[in-house]
């Protein structure tokens, strides 16, 4: 099987979006977590900010990351002609 230029481009785009989303995941989890003590003095609608992020904020970011990835990739499949048929 020989991959075309288009296929390689599809894969590198996939790697790019994976990298970007992974970076957001990392920041929301570990960078925010690392500075939790420092940002906890900020009041966010009653919550200390770090508590809010760990209890709710980061979770919302995770849901959005996965939602966006599914949407982006499903469109990319169409654009590069690698999408599956309706039924296999």
């Amino acid at each position, binding site marked *: 099987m020989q991959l075309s230029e288009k296929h390689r481009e599809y894969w590198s785009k996939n790697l790019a979006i994976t990298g970007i989303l992974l970076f957001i995941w990392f920041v929301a*989890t570990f960078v925010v977590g*690392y500075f939790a003590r420092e940002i906890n003095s900020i009041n966010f609608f009653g*919550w200390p900010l770090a*508590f809010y992020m760990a209890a*709710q904020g980061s979770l919302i970011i995770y*849901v959005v990351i996965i939602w966006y*990835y599914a949407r982006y990739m499903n469109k990319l499949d169409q654009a590069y002609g690698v999408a599956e048929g309706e039924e296999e």
Partner: protein
Amino acid sequence: MSGGSSGMFSGATQSAFNTQLKKIYTWYTGGFVVFVVGLAILEQMGLPRAWIGYIFLLATVGLYAGIGIMSRTSDAAEYYVAGRRVPALFNGMATGADWMSAASFIGMAGTLYLTGFGGLAFIMGWTGGYCLVALFLAPYLRKFGQFTIPDFLGARYGGNIPRSIGIFAAILCSFTYVVAQIYGVGLITTRLTGVSFEVGIFLGLGGILVCSFLGGMRAVTWTQVAQYIILIVAYLIPVVWLSVKYTGVPVPQFVYGKVLEKVSAREQVLIKDPKELEVRGIFKARADEASANLKGLPSSFDAGKQKLAAAVDKLKADAAPADQVAAAEKALAAYPKDAAAAKAQWTKDAGLAARAGPPLRHAQAFPGKDEAAQDVSRRNFLALVFCLMVGTAALPHILMRYYTTPSVKEARQSVFWSLFFIFLLYFTAPALAVLVKYDVYSFLVGTEFAKLPQWVASWTRVDPSLLSIVDINRDGIVQLAEIAIGGDIVVLATPEIAGLPYVISGLVAAGGLAAALSTADGLLLTIANALSHDFYYKMLDPNASTARRVTISKILLLIVALAAASVAAQKPADILFLVSAAFSLAAAGFFPALVLGIFWKRANKWGATLGMIAGLGITFYYMATTQVWLRGVFGVTSPVADNIWWGIQPISAGLWGVPLGFLVIIVVSLLTPAPDKETQDLVEHVRYPNLAGDTMKTLGT
């Protein structure tokens, strides 16, 4: 479609099937609500509480069994992967139920109550891991489309060695986990109906088996969807009610920040309150005395006994009032009867030191007495988050669920739905913990002992390890330091704290049962499939017929279930540690080999084999040398402090195993020849949902 589909859980086309499913589960949800409302009316008319418990147990387990019987099958694709026609939304619900165990449903809010910010590591870890599932694994595994996770290792790395390690790791993580679920089933059944623990286990086991035994993944999937609906309704109703009671708003997740502010203000007062200090002082004195006695063994045993005997003699000689003599004699009689008993008693008392400290500040991140201790606490928090996340993305019973969607596209969407449905419970748990804490800190503390609320009285009677309040300083008023609370009560008692009728308590127990049963189903299937499909079919007898494979899988399922139940009936002590250990072990064993297998064509058989062994090995070694129970099992005697690296707790041992696994796979792969053309083609095959000119067929049938 395959010949095995029949009855309700099938349809002419995928979209007709989807529509039909939505209709079935909408009716089902409506029927369930009517059932609960009906029971509530019967309760008002005088139906006894015990009956409500029995009705809930029989109705829900009967329902799951019914779905199991309707979905029975002996077709391999139906049995192993539900015919690969589970729509994204429903696979999301099934994954949610598969994922959320008794620990999530009952234990999570309690852990948050007891540990405050520190417990949020579980909330983040057990949700953020789905980002890794979505980005690195689910779509590719779906394209690969076999039946199990060891299947992928076997096909990608070639030969039986990587597959065997995969089988071993899958069984190791899943078995410890399933024992904990069956244990949970036993506890809840006992609480719901009052039968003995052992009977409870076997009743629950019947509910698990009738489902997975008859219909494999197909039955488990449709039962898990039904179980998800019950568990989420059961979790949300009491919290919403409690929120209305304290904030006037029925959406606790949006408003508990204000309640948390009030809790923090109360903590500030309670930390310095003189009465609280008095009680904590008494605990400290008792703990110090016990520690001193422990150090003085064996002579302190005789000394203590003589002291009490002398006191009795002196009172008698002085002709003291009879009640004083009786009290002194009682103290003497209560004295431990030998040195061993004294040691046990004093060790327990020395543990009271834990209650001598001030209450923890719920919202404080990384508490610690100085900068260094705070840094260790932060390091452990982040390490635990890391291990739970990577472990989530490596547990075979979860990854297996993404084999069941109709397409790669739906697999991606399905991860979104999975996390969405999990998120509904996980972003509610911290709110529940704060609301219950508010109730305890503001209303229970300061109450007179004569006027304790009803729920306190009933729970202290049920199980003193869940809740015990003793008037330590004898002032007739409840101090916070006098309350000993077990985590599980937070969820179980919420309906009563909120003043809801008993039927809601029954509903919560049924929800916990659904959570435990659904997870146990998925895990048992994983173990039985690893043995029957990967070990028997792929390694021992590749010519076995489909019917034979499915039959063997069913027999193995029965054996594994009975083995797990008999282990659970022993009530193993360190069950919680074993469950958390499963995450670190799965993370170190599977994650590097799976991810590199997809993203790095150069990864080869020897790299993966040694990488998995190294990852599992170091993780296990670290646990064995630093965790109390495992140290005992392996007879490790060197001091824990010498074996701890960088202050990391044994639960997060995967922090060492995952990077080492990656490193070994990369180094060894580069030192040995690249995989053959066919393997490299397989990697291309899984990377593209549909590749023109690709003739490879990996879809298992």
